[in-house]
Structure formats: structure tokens, C-alpha cells
């Protein structure tokens, strides 16, 4: 009960800071724009165009459109926005006078860290469920194509967020600074992990063009393997949404390991820290 109270307290704080309101207001705006853009005449126009050119059917057009919604740029914008929003949760909790009260209550330090983690995930999951869920309903109702795999992106995006949020929590506990937390995580997420992702794609394909020495290649692969692979997980998500399967779940496994390590370090550090 104490843990649930702690988690609901974080939600109430987000509500009071108008964070939840801003998220849902912005998402509602996006949805309204989508509804206005996808009119019946638009759908009929697309259908006739597909028939006349002998191209792929309506279903494939819908799948392609939905895959575009969860492509890399929208994914980055969503996840980066969520990370900026939640970056203040831990530093705010650690403020003198408040952390003293929290630690004097019968809730273990481990539960406090896990409570922060769970609260952030639930918040983001709810927001994604709202955004992507309603987008799916709008597209499906307008097109008549109910492509369920699109909804799996809610789970995958939440997972990407959870993996990165574990690092947000650790850095928040260590630095107690919202700004530093935002900077370090956005730098880790982009451009560093994106560059590593591109480099890894290069190594897996034919090596044409730029040549890396073996030492550089080893260093890049090392960092690629230990840092979270949000971009590669997004690839898996996109394949699944398109009706395919993941080529390899290795990026997911190593990223989940990263999350486990970050959370464990956060719990260890918090359990030893004097306040």
C-alpha cells in the first residue's frame, strides 16, 4: 500500500505540474489534425489511385502509413519528449526537506527507486496508449482496415522508454540535477547511440566506402553492445508492425541487460547515499 501511495503521489505531482495535461492536450491536437487530414474523400482518392495504377492494396497502404507514424523521427521526438518530462522527478524527490521526510517513512530505499521507475513507465504507457490507440482507431475507422499489429508499437515504445528511463533515474540520483539528467540522456540517446547504430549497420553490411581499422571497429562495437539500442529496437518494432518478424532480438536482450544494470546501480547507489 505504501508503494502504491508513493507511485500515485508521483502521478499527482505530474498532474499538478500540468505535465499530464500538456501531454494529453498536445496529443489531442495531433489526433485532431490527423482526423482532419484523413477525410472520406482522401481515403476514396487513395483507393482509386491504387486501383488505377495496379499497385498494392489498401491494406498495404495503411500498414505503410502506420509504419511511418512509428518511424525513427517520430519515435525520437516522442521518447526524447518523455525523457525531458520525467527528468525532474528524481531530482525533485531528492530536495532537502522532502527526501528527509520520505526516508523517515516505512518504505525501503529500493522500493523508492522502483516506485519512481514504475510510475514513469505507467505514465508513458498511458500517454502512448492514448495517442497511438486513438490514432489506430481513427485510421482503422476511416480506412476500414483494422491492422492490430500497429498497437504492439505501444508496448515497444514503452519498452524503449523504460530502458532509457533506467539511466535517467541513475543519473538523477547521482547528480540531483534535472538539467544534467536531460543533457546526459539526450546525448547518450542521440547522437551517440544513433552514430553507433549507423556504424553497426555499416559493419553488418558490405564494407564499402569508409574503412575503419580493427581497433576502431572493436571500440565502436564494444560501445554499441553496452549502450541501449533504441534505434535497433525501433527497427524490430517497425518490422512487426509491417507484419514481419524481428531478424534478431539481440538488441532487445542487451538493452534489457543495460536496463537491469542501470536500475541495480541506481538502487545500490541510493541505498548507500547519505542525505
Amino acid at each position: 500500500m505504501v508503494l502504491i501511495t508513493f507511485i500515485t503521489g508521483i502521478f499527482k505531482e505530474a498532474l499538478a505540474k500540468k505535465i499530464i495535461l500538456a501531454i494529453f492536450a498536445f496529443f489531442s491536437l495531433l489526433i485532431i489534425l490527423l482526423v482532419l487530414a484523413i477525410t472520406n474523400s482522401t481515403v476514396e482518392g487513395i483507393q482509386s489511385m491504387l486501383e488505377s495504377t495496379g499497385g498494392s492494396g489498401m491494406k498495404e497502404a495503411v500498414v505503410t502509413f502506420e509504419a511511418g507514424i512509428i518511424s525513427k523521427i517520430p519515435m525520437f521526438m516522442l521518447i526524447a519528449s518523455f525523457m525531458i518530462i520525467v527528468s525532474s522527478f528524481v531530482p525533485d524527490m531528492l530536495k532537502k526537506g522532502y527526501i528527509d521526510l520520505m526516508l523517515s517513512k516505512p518504505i525501503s530505499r529500493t522500493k523508492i527507486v522502483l516506485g519512481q521507475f514504475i510510475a514513469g513507465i505507467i505514465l508513458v504507457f498511458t500517454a502512448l496508449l492514448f495517442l497511438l490507440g486513438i490514432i489506430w482507431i481513427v485510421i482503422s475507422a476511416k480506412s476500414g482496415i483494422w491492422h492490430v499489429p500497429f498497437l504492439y508499437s505501444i508496448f515497444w515504445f514503452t519498452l524503449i522508454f523504460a530502458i532509457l528511463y533506467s539511466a535517467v533515474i541513475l543519473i538523477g540520483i547521482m547528480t540531483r540535477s534535472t538539467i544534467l539528467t536531460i543533457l546526459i540522456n539526450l546525448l547518450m540517446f542521440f547522437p551517440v547511440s544513433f552514430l553507433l547504430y549507423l556504424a553497426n549497420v555499416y559493419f553488418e553490411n558490405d564494407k564499402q566506402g569508409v574503412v575503419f581499422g580493427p581497433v576502431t571497429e572493436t571500440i565502436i562495437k564494444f560501445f554499441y553492445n553496452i549502450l541501449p539500442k533504441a534505434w535497433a529496437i525501433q527497427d524490430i518494432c517497425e518490422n512487426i508492425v509491417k507484419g514481419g518478424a524481428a531478424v534478431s532480438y539481440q538488441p532487445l536482450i542487451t538493452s534489457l541487460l543495460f536496463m537491469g544494470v542501470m536500475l541495480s546501480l541506481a538502487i545500490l547507489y541510493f541505498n548507500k547515499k547519505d542525505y
Partner: protein
Amino acid sequence: MSVIEIKELTKHFSAKSFSKEKIKALEKVSFTTDTSEIFGLLGPNGAGKTTLVKILLGITFSTSGDAKIFGRPVSDVNTKKKIGYLPENHRFPQYLTGEQVINYFGKLSGVNSKVLKTRTVEYLGMVGMEKWKNTKIKKYSKGMMQRLGLAQSMINNPDLIFLDEPTDGVDPIGRKEIRDILIHLKSKGKTIFLNSHLLSEIELICDRVAILNKGILIKEGSVEDITTKANTYKFNTNELNDKIMNLLLNQHKAVLNGRNEFLCNVKDVEELNGVIDYLRTEKILILSVQQEKNSLESMFINLIEQQKN
């Protein structure tokens, strides 16, 4: 069983990151507190009072030594269900109302919702915040925040309450009300552990005190014992003549304060009665005889100065 048992508690902080230089916040402090007691912890700024309280609450960790609450190690999370705490400069979420603050921290303390409802009304009334319960706390004054903080510290009906400067920012009437609350809690069997710079407040309500300076416990005992000047008595009389005054000065090393009052240091009760008998023989009217006391403040300052020297 003592409520709090501290044995050779030591805390050293690093002066800087990666530096071996240490700040000795506490040095082998030992004392105990009992049930139904108001225990005062005194000391100048930086003495280690807040550090000691934080170690007892698990907010900070000791370097060495042992500390127990209700016979359990301070690391035992479940013990905190029986503890209330009001930190100095406490910070509540500003978006909450007074009632919501009590509800939130009550639930965090493990209080059942039904019980919480009744207690919230009771304790907000006790601290005089009933009228303000639906107002957001960002509109509260400092004194109101202190009262709310006190209610928060009592909400789980704790057996032990830590209060760090509970009357800070509170007006004199409010301070009296808070003192009355603390005395009432003590009568219900609670133990109150009080940090305060207001020595006059401590003197009024504390049963025992401990005085810290630079992390070292320099004095511990009942307020009565600490403040009583042994074998010194103040006499108020009608006007003394020169003969009597000279005798008192020479034989009893009295300190005269005009012709109607003097302080007299005696070896024992027999000598005290000897002085009284002499004054009566000289037909001096004794208006009062009082055993002399230091104020806690003067004792405190003397002890700190002694330690400095």
C-alpha cells in the same frame, strides 16, 4: 527497554570528494532515552544534532557505533511505522492542501484509510489548522507550515516523535500551544526527541537533555540536575545592617545584592540552617530562601566555553 539506545555513535564526512580529509560530525556519542519522556538535544550550529537524528532515522549512515530504536537496529524499515518526524525546513508538495498533505504522509506511514480520515480531522484541529485544511499549502505562512508539519509527524500515532525546531517561525501563543501538545503526548506514553535552539522552550518542557558540541557529548542529564547550582541559596530579607553584612561576607563568602538580598554558598543543610538561625537571632525577617538555579542558557554557554578552553 530504552526507546533509543546509542552507543559510541560516530560519523565522519569527507571534506571533499576524493579527499582523505574528514569532518568529524559525531564522535563516540552514547546515551539512551526512555518512554514517556521529552528529551532535548542541544548544541551550537554544526554540533551534530541533525546528523544524529538523521542517523537514527536511516537518512544518513553512521561511520561506526551502534544505534537502536525500540530494541531494533535503525536500519529496520518496519520500526519507522512507530516513528514520526518533523525535519527542520521540511518541504511538502506545494500543490497539495493541508488535508492532502496529512493524507499522503499518513498513507506513506502505513495508516489505514478509515483511521486516517478521523485522525486527519483530529490532528489538524489539535494544531489549529482545521480552518485551513482545504487551502493549498503554497499559501501557508511559516508558522502554519510548522503546525501542519507537527500534525504530519503525529498522524501515524507514533510512539517516538523526532522534532527538529518545531516552534521555528511560530508566534508565542502558537509555541505555548505546541508545548501543551507535546506535554499531552508525553502523558499518553509517547517519547519526544526534541532539537531546538530555543533553550527557554527546552527548559520548560524537557525532562532530560544532552548537549553536543563539535560532535562530542559534553553533558547529559535531567534539566533539574544540570541547572541546579548545588548548595547555593538566595535569601530575601528585610534590611540588613552593616554588622550582619560583614559577617555574611567574611564567614560565608556571601554575594550581596543590596541590603535585602544575598547569595550564600553552604557546605551542607546544617550550615544553611546555621545561617537561618543567625539571621533569626539578629531579628532579621527572612522573606524567602531559594536554592539557586542557572538558566539552561547560561549553563549551556558555560559548558561550551569550558570545552572551547
